[in-house]
């Protein structure tokens, strides 16, 4: 009887063998779920409550990496501050750099803001360009296609299913984007400031101008000198919207708002970062609505 039970458990393991996929952030996790369906078991490593540059490297994440068949990372240096030691400690040959089971999403994106010279004198800059591409709904299909290709490469037997899921998703997303683009048209030429350059892909796409950042240099806390200069420039340019993320302090933004009459908008940087941003559609709708407002 016991043996029979064990056998069925084992068989079940074989019959319903699904790919274990870890993604560093939630948006990529959700897209993977769309393309992989029941064939994948998705685990998101970085909570969207926290700064994506500084996910707390909890040992429990090592256990999650240990059994992954595929690790989908954002790349572009976004995980540099937390992922490398976890990956080294996980002892999982399948997902090491250079292995088939590692997908670096930034390799498929046309990166913007690539600095021509890099020095820490300019703060903690992203040397490979702006890695915050997942806040732009126009990058979703690029990501979905890269994920589809990778899943097929790892699990060629189910190619048809992945392709079908992708086709369905693609159609749906193209329709969504058409709708989204028309909605965003009325915001062309709008001017904003942001805390960190999290939304540059989005702003560029929809012709919205970013006048400056609350942080004086990437990764450096606000200084009064820089804040005053930003207020001046916002007044000159009639900027009425401040894009604030969920994980930085909000006092500086509130201060700037009080001096300029601008409105602070909390913009999610990842799925579930703010209430109601639990699906891809809702996530980008909230970004669009709050930037446009």
């Amino acid at each position, binding site marked *: 009887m016991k043996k029979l039970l064990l056998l069925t458990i084992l068989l079940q393991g074989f019959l319903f063998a699904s790919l274990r996929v870890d993604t560093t952030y939630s948006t990529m996790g959700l897209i993977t779920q769309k393309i992989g369906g029941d064939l994948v078991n998705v685990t998101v490593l970085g909570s969207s409550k926290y700064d994506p540059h500084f996910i707390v490297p*909890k040992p429990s994440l090592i256990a999650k990496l240990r059994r992954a068949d595929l690790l989908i990372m954002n790349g572009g240096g976004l995980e540099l*501050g937390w*992922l490398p030691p976890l990956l080294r*400690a996980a*002892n999982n040959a399948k997902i090491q750099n250079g*292995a088939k089971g590692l997908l670096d999403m930034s390799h498929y994106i046309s990166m913007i803001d690539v600095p021509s010279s890099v020095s820490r004198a300019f703060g903690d800059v992203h040397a490979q360009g702006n890695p915050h591409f997942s806040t732009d709904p126009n990058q979703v299909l690029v990501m979905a296609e890269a994920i589809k290709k990778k899943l097929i490469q790892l699990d060629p037997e189910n190619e048809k299913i992945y392709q079908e899921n992708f086709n369905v998703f693609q159609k749906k997303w193209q329709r969504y984007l058409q709708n989204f683009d028309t909605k965003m048209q009325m915001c062309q030429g709008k001017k904003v400031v942001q805390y960190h350059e999290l939304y540059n892909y989005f702003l560029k796409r929809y012709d919205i101008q970013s006048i400056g950042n609350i942080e004086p240099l990437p990764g450096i806390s606000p200084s009064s000198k820089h804040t005053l200069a930003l207020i001046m420039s916002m007044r000159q340019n009639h900027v009425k919207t401040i894009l604030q993320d969920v994980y930085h302090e909000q006092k500086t933004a509130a201060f700037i708002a009080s001096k300029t009459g601008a409105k602070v908008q909390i913009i999610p940087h990842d799925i579930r970062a703010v209430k109601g941003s639990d699906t891809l559609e809702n996530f980008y709708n909230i970004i669009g609505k709050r930037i446009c407002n």
Partner: protein
Amino acid sequence: MQKKLLLSLFAFTSLLADSEVEMLKQQLLQQQKITQKLLTRIEALEVKQKKVVHTVQQQAAIKNVNTSASFSQNAYLPDMAFILNMSALDRNVKNSNYTTYDIPGFINNIGATGELPFNKNDGFNFNYAEVALRSTVDPYFDAFAIFHLSPAAFAIEEAFVKTRAIPYGIQIKVGTFKSDFGRINSKHQHVWQFDTQPIIYKSLFGPDGISDAGIQAQWVAPTDTYIMAGVEAFAGTNSRSFGADTQNRHLYVGYLKSSVDIRDDLSVLGGVSIAHGDNYDNNVTNPTNIYGLDLTLRNQLGSYSSLVWQSEFLQRDKKLSTRTDKQSGLYSELIYQYNNNWYAGVRYDTILKNDTDLSAYSGVDTSNLDRYTAKIDYHPFPMSRLRLQYSYDRTKVIEGERKDINEISLSLNIAAGAHGAHNY
């Protein structure tokens, strides 16, 4: 031209096609073959020449877009970081006296051990510069090297290769490296939460901890909960606890670590460790066992704010020719990160059990050996750190008398170059 030559040769052959000149015919046939060979060679040369001209023209058409040096290998350079550590210090003991301190039962005249402690001098100290290199050698190995340069010495602090492609969650490390015994043994001074080493670590292992040439194997269990087991074998050169005779010394280390998330923002990491080696006393080799227990609780209050409580207990059982010494101690620290720039912390260090020969300290109170430490860190930028630390140290005997030491230090640590990722 060549074809004509061939033709005339043929004609010549046919003219002389006579039984009398069979030999000549043979010779001619041979000549004919040679000529044919020459012909094909000439043709080949002609084709080649055409090709060369063609490529030259094509190259002229390509624009010169890349002027990188042809033999540059910059992309393959190892990740490199360098660290500078210095301090200004005020202590209520003269330097000449401080360098002779005892920790009763553990350290007898620190100066004589040859260990130059960090922040040795009352006044200014340039402690060290460190260069760390990390590179992937090939699909199978990662290589690491950390060079430690102090004003008086150059040392290879760590240099090892680590496997990256062994299945079943196994990883092998070979070289000279810091053991993963306990919680902080493997950590370098510049990432410690306090500038001073916990008393029990300093007492049992010395300033570098267990750091030796050897081999390590670690295994991560394929479970939802983090479980890691490791074994290590070392040359056994740590003389503080082990120091057997140079022929037969050895040191084995084993540990088991596990971690669970109680909530998304509250996690616990615990470990048990053992180090087993030999000591050499009165020309007899006897075993030394050191046991370690560690526990860390981390409560994340935001992206840049957290509360971490970390404690370690270590016990040494050292068998000697006439008796067995049993000694133990612990430290417990609480670190609060307020934001990106500010940290504060307190630590308590104590020796719990000191069951050894203390006859050299007759008339000296050797009980209640402990130390209190508090610190504030300021990070003006992510890569630099200023630390103000105060300690009240009641573990030292200087010139035959128990001496309580008050020490205040301001240290500066700079980490330039490649990012070291953050610690748990």
